[in-house]
């Protein structure tokens, strides 16, 4: 990792994750919803991109298409050059409904270990990964508890621990810090960044929180309101070494935040394509 972030928008490589003209319409009984109209962007290998957009913009829908859980109605998602047609190997997803994504009939440790077992990780390594992941989300003491014995924020951290224990190449996170207090949230943000820098994985991070998006990301993708397109791709040219207080105190941080904020405000009423170029 270099000390300053690469301006990923001009990055030459083909990009590990390639979203091309993805469109998704839900056909319900009597109700059809065009959740996503036309999304095109790519996220390079080892890049950390944040996605912000109004509620109902289709962020979860997009993530599910990328994860191979939903077939797009139009366009395609490519991962490492291959078209995504089902859940690809080496990808972990932290779902927005973290509580329901944990299995209540298993202990916390078993919840984290099961995906590893599916990956045929040897038992001793599995145990080490589980312990390590729990340690890093600050839940060293709960491996034998059941998920429903934990608070909402703790459950959310278990879901995150499960994803990082999996050692994915691509990590998709859907508003993963929504249920934790400010202090824990700050810790988890730093954890995400350090894991990302240490493991070199590609991270796609959906959030409502503009501060969080700017603090975490190398890029912030601003989605328009439904029907959804990418409204702007903001490069975050902050130093790679980020720290909760000093980074957030930088004038550049304030500028970027204000810029993204304006874009998100605009997004709520936005319906036609091109926006002003990325911030300079």
């Amino acid at each position, binding site marked *: 990792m270099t000390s300053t972030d690469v301006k990923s928008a001009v990055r030459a490589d083909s990009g590990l994750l390639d979203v091309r003209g993805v469109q998704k319409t839900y056909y319900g009984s009597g109700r059809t919803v065009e959740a996503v109209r036309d999304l095109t962007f790519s996220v390079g290998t080892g890049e950390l991109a944040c996605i912000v957009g109004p509620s109902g913009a289709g962020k979860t829908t997009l993530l599910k298409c990328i994860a191979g859980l939903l077939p797009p109605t139009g366009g395609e998602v490519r991962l490492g050059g291959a078209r995504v047609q089902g859940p690809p190997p080496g990808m*972990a*997803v932290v779902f927005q409904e973290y509580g329901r994504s944990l299995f*209540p*009939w298993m202990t916390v440790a078993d919840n984290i270990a099961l995906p590893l077992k599916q990956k045929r990780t040897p038992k001793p390594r599995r145990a080490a990964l589980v312990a390590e992941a729990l340690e890093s989300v600050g839940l060293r003491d*709960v491996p034998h508890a059941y998920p*429903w*014995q934990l608070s909402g924020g703790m459950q959310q951290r278990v879901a995150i621990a499960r994803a990082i224990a999996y050692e994915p190449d691509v990590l998709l996170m859907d508003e993963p810090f929504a249920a934790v207090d400010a202090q824990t949230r700050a810790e988890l943000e730093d954890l995400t960044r350090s894991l990302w820098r240490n493991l070199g994985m590609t991270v796609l991070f959906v959030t409502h929180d503009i501060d969080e998006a700017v603090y975490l990301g190398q890029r912030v993708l601003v989605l328009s309101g439904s029907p959804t397109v990418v409204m702007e791709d903001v490069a975050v040219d902050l130093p790679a070494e980020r720290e909760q207080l000093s980074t957030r105190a930088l004038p550049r941080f304030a500028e970027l935040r204000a810029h993204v904020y304006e874009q998100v405000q605009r997004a709520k009423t936005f319906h036609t394509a091109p926006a002003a170029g990325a911030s300079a």
Partner: protein
Amino acid sequence: MTLQPRRAGPPPAPHPRSRTRTGALPEPLLGLLGLVLLAGVLEVLPRTGVVSADYLPPFSEIADALVGVAGEESFWQALLDTAEGWGYGLAIAVGVGTGLGLLIGSVEVLRRATASTIEFLRPIPSVALVPLAVLVYGTGLESTLLLVVYAAVWPVLLQMLAGVRDVDPVARDTAASYRFTRWARLRHVTWPTALPYLMTGVRLSASVALILAISSQLIIGSPGIGKEIALAQSSNAVEEMYALVIVTGALGVCVNVAARALERRVLAWHTSVRTEAVT
């Protein structure tokens, strides 16, 4: 950061039964009192001539007959036969119902193709199959089994179908995104989701199986308590007949208690989920 789980250790025992003021007596004692009262009424009614003692002997005489019956070897053989018909029948019904339920429930095409057939077959009362059973199996254990299995398979099958459909979409997505194998999905997601439904099905089936076991013995005359009741009736041993009826009642209670105990054991995590979940 050290965080304690809100509650460590095994899931909590279910809440103690509402021990509100129904007098100072705890519930089991109150239940016993009710039974004693019933026995008293059964004693008084024939003795005062409200009901003819020919049809309803005083309770004390029934109790005497019960002691007498319990001393006979044939009674214990009959009890064993009944337990056998019930147990084997229930086991087959649970096995078949669970297997079919998992299979039909997980394959959408099968589910839709069989829905109307199930709706048609289910309401057929098992006793309507008595002639068939006799024709095919005569009056042995197999006849009882046929009737018991036919009646007891439905609750299990229907509960299982409902359970398999109840898998949480987020849990399903989670399993899919971590690339669980087909077997792992069945074992770790579908099965635990359906288990509470299955347990309800087993509890219902256990009672139904007992009813059918005894009915078939009564009607067909296959060996068991039912047959003993019919024999007692035809030989005009009224006290004995009532004694045997009481035995069937006691069997029913045992079956229910056992089924509930099993349910509690298997679903320790589940009952707690219902009462403790933070969502």
